[in-house]
């Protein structure tokens, strides 16, 4: 299943990844290969299998409404490249 260069650019934009022309071509090949790989699933007969959004035979995995102490703020912020007054700090991102 070959993707077009336009489709690759569209997906890149959704992911907010900037690609050069070379990279678009490289990604087009790699993503197409991945899709081809998963085409194998289409060969599995599924006529007798009811549609599901879940591969596990589970339902209602939930919990009662109880609280636990949250993490220590120092730990929460430990890996943040930048912080300010207890907040995480990031560059301004404009909505697309």
């Amino acid at each position, binding site marked *: 299943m070959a993707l077009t260069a336009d489709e690759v650019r569209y997906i890149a934009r959704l992911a907010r990844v900037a690609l050069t022309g070379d990279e678009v071509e490289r990604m087009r090949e790699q993503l197409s290969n991945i899709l081809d790989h998963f085409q194998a699933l289409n060969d599995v007969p599924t006529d007798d299998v009811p549609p599901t*959004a879940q591969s596990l035979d589970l339902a209602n995995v939930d919990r009662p409404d109880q609280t636990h102490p949250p993490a220590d*703020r120092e730990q929460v912020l430990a890996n943040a490249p930048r912080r300010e007054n207890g907040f*995480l700090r990031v560059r301004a991102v404009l909505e697309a």
Partner: protein
Amino acid sequence: MTTKARTEYEVVVGVEVHVQLKTRSKMFCACPRDYYNAEPNTHVCPVCLGAPGVLPVINREAVHFTILAGLAMGCEIPAESKFDRKNYPYPDLMKGYQISQYDRPLCVGGALEIEGDDGPKTVRLERIHLEEDTARLLHRDDGAEPYSLIDVNRSGVPLMELVTKPDMRSGHETAAFLRTLRQLLRYLEISDADMEKGSFRFDVNLSLRPRGTQPLGTKVELKNMNSFRSAQRGVEFEVQRQSAILESGGRILLETRGFVDATGETASQRSKEEAHDYRYFPEPDLPPLRIPAEEVAALRERLPELPDAKRARFEREYGLPHDEAALLAETRARAGAFEEAVRAAGDPKRARAVAHWLIGDVARHLNALGADAELADTRVTPAHIGELARLVEERTVTASSAKEVLDAAFESGEMPAAIVEARGLRIVSDAGAIDEVARRVIEANPKAVDDYRGGKESAIKFLVGQVMREMRGRADPNGATEALRSHLEAGR
């Protein structure tokens, strides 16, 4: 040149409301949900922080709260529901996706009855689904660069989203829907539904069409309204703006506009209008929810008496007029206080008097405390109100002394009967004492006496007032009127 008849336009409005649910813990982790006034990033754990490898687990109470809302509005509760990932990159989303519900929401259809422009009106719902709130961003600029500060406390708070069908036809109806919805949510005690705290937020979708036609016009989305009044003003402004454009032959742009409170106008938010592509897919970390009929039935049992039913019962059971019953049923706390006070008054016939105290002088005291103050926030209890109504009806105190008793009760929390005794406010019915004062009042007010004798019957009210004043409000008004009348007639 011929003048074309002005086309009359009709506005078609639908709303989307986001409601934070009042659970103890967050939607998918056990962090405390209530972050109000908390220091930033102190209600956070690896799950709501979106750390790699963590597993969300559904808060069953949040599911129940959403179903309760659905049942209260007559929604269908499908037997199976699921969560999906809504993907978009923005710093308020810690994982890069929001866990939401796409095609299998918890509640489908339903409706809410509101007071429309032409009487009662049904606003139909599209759906109600459950999702997680995002982190809160504060936009800053330190001169070197614009940047954002992130507080993750709000991330993962259970958020219920309700979408209506385009059934409202004016700014007023839009505000009426939002008010009615907020009242219902508070009755259900599933949310504070407090706009200032951000637990009740809404967007409005609207379009104009020539009145009497069916096809919908170009949709405009309105944001940034943070009061019922701004919702109404925002819609009304758009009706004017869009009518003017259509009248002059222009076209309406499909766009998002922000309401500006200071001017009452809306401004384009200039976001490129392209269809969002959220790449929804089933949340692999969350197996589906099955909601058995017994569970729905048990939740139905949990539904309290709802505002409309309560109001109707107050009219029927206590003989209250519609408006008074509606005022008392406005909040569950007020309605509860009313019925408790009626019981304390010892006779359902005193309900009308109890209602008047609550709607009148008690409301005045509460308003002084703040918009959402309830009786429970004061030292006065329903037992106080009931006792006061009883004392007035049994003619132990006059109506005017009773106001003083109530003020004193708000001050000290003492029971009315005790205040009456301590302050010597017991009604004076002793004919001799009243007669004595009546005689003095007549001597001191020759003008009013002449008026009365000259046929101005109402002059006696002034004289009664004078007797009351002399006796510090304690005189039995009937006794005072009688005493005055007998002196006035005798001296004719």
